[in-house]
């Protein structure tokens, strides 16, 4: 975004690159939060995983989130090629999958409460890891929602290019976080 007041020095970096750099730096920072998060699993319960963990649900949630990354990718590609309609459709699809994912985690919590409530060691880890992640998913859905309405209101990509790209990058990051959370929570022995 521009300062209204400023004639700028001639820098070698265009705004898009600066925005990308800033977002990447923030992702590095957030990634270190997830590293802390994952390391606490090993500290509290080692590598053991109880048998009651909902394996099929976990696998389906993983596949769902990966698929939503594909639609997010396609939204970005459409925006890049000026395809407003395609971008809108793909953003909607991504958000929809994100919301289903949130409900899936809600169902998982409902089940998990019976076997390992938060006051047990594995429950502590499960609810914290999925809780922090699902909060990220919600921020992702919210961001995509803002971007969707901006694209819809102006009915053009124009100024929204970075908005789409940034939201999509954030969404992929949430996906990368899950790529590590899934095996850590469900698959280790």
């Amino acid at each position: 975004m521009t300062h209204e007041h400023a004639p700028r020095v001639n820098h070698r970096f265009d705004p898009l690159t600066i925005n990308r750099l800033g977002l990447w730096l923030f992702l590095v920072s957030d990634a270190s939060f997830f590293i802390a998060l994952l390391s606490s699993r090993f500290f509290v319960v080692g590598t053991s995983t109880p048998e009651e963990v909902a394996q099929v649900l976990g696998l389906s949630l993983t596949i769902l989130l990966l698929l939503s990354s594909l639609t997010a990718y396609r939204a970005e590609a459409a925006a890049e090629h000026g395809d407003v309609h395609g971008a809108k459709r793909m953003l909607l699809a991504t958000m929809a999958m994100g919301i289903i994912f949130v409900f899936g985690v809600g169902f998982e919590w409902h089940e998990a409460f019976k076997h390992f409530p938060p006051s047990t060691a594995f429950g502590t880890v499960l609810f914290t890891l999925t809780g922090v992640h699902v909060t990220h998913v919600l921020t992702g859905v919210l961001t995509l929602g803002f971007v969707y309405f901006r694209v819809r209101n102006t009915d053009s990509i124009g100024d929204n290019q970075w908005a789409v790209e940034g939201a999509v990058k954030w969404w992929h990051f949430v996906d990368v976080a899950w790529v590590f959370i899934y095996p850590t929570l469900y698959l280790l022995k």
Partner: protein
Amino acid sequence: MAAFMPLVRGAIYAAIGFVIGAGISLGITNMTGEDAQEPLIVLGYVFAVIGWLMGVGMWKAWGRNWFGKSTDLNPSGGWERYLRFNIDHKVIGIQYITSLVVVFLLAGILAMLMRAELADSGQNVFTKTTYNTTMSLHGIMMVAVAVATVMGGFSNFVLPLMIGAEDVAFPRINALSFWVIPPVVVLLLLSPLFGGFDTGWTAYPPLSTQTPVGGLLFELAFLTFGISSILGGMNFIATIITQRAPGMTWGRLPIFVWSVLAASIISLTATQWVAYGLLMIIFERIFNMVFFSPPGGNALLYQHVFWFYSHPAVYIMILPAFGAELEIISHFSRKPLFAYRWVVRAFALIVALSFVVWAHHLFTSGMGESLHGPFMILTELISIPTGIVFLSALGTLWRSKLRLKVPLLFALGVVFNFTIGGLTGIFLADVATDIALQDTYFVVAHFHYTIMGGEIFAIFAAGYYWFPKITGRMYNETLGRIHFGLMFILYNITFLAMFIPGTVGMNRRVAEYPPEFESMNLIVSIAAFGLGLSFLPWIYNMLNSWIRGKKAPDNPWDATTLEWQTTSPPPLENFDEFPVVTGDPYGYGDETVTHARFGKPAHSAPAEGD
């Protein structure tokens, strides 16, 4: 009155936000039948912070943009521009410095109260709990001052000037990182009213999971402060990479810029760990999770996670302090900085090592003994890069014609004090001696020698050094010298004397102690009161000079770096003519070296992030 409107609006929106958050939380706890109080505070606070930010001007300057509406950034104006969400890095720098000076003085008063309690072995001022709350508040408030005054305050003001930029890479995020500080201060000041917290600023569980609500307020405040730190770090890295003037190569960056870059890397990554540590405490409080209690949980987890941030955090404090110190020493010795490249390497090495030494805080905690040796050696390795920084300072001073102004006096104070701080640190890094010295006043004295003697002295050095640039007026040199003389002598008496009760085994964090330590503590207390009074000439000097001081020239120190080549104070866009960097920043004694030349404004597209 209109000037205070953003603050009033912020407060009202915060109240509304709190009600909304608390309402949502009440709805949920009603359904689940949980204890309602703490979730209500957490959720209410989150919404209150959002309301506060939007009220002070973030909505106008930024929020409307999310809905595709036009925004009004308007960074100009009179003094009222300091009282709202403003994106000018110079305004933000002053906002940071002035608010943290207030926090510094408040925390200083707390220290005076503690010394009043400790003047004799019995109980005078406090009960045991209120003493520990005071001690904890003093700790966290001073940590906030130490982390954010140089990183948020001075580097915000001078760093973009030093690299020839017009602003930081993300001006709005910069403003956001300041405006989350007021809620932090409010929460900390509220916490004694809600039972306080007697955990110290380290908040070790299981105690911290059992403190009254005051402890929860402290944890939320700390978390919020972390957000400020992370966003600030991100912003400085992006600024240093992308906003430099043409010709400002890596080898031509002033050393202060390098030190801020190094500290930013730490605050960007390490701060997330303490955020997670505090989150675990809050989860254990609210959801009865068992991170730190049986079965399965282990209180050591917190100590590891906490120190993984909090040890690197002392380098967030001290690295920019070293940068400012070296900067001042070079300009006032009129010599190029000695071993510039080695200092940069030393900074890089300190950053790398800072992440692998945290467990030296855990030697007496029951951590696995196989870890003692490696962490002892890694910790002691840090003295190598720190030594390089000292050699650079000494090499620059060597055979120079010193201009003994107040900034240089304070910078020399850093060299002296930090030497003592560093040497006493060896005893704490060494497992054998640490087991005896851990949790005694030796640790307190050592810590104050590094952070107060090192960083706070550097903050005063930087404050006097950049005062003419920031305010456009000169401070009173005589008063400055009086301040330095009193502070330096009384500071050293206070904390040198504090080593003695420590070495004979007096515990820290106690309101009462065995009478045999009384005489030493009385000396410490008297010197500490004097130290407290030594800030009075400084306060008078700063206020009086800012209002009535004589106008400062653009470059009162004949310094070479870019911030002195513009007017005092600088115009809104920093430079009337744009700098092109052509040589080293410290080209003293070599007439062929010019740091920069200035040309007419270039016409080009904006280059600034979102």
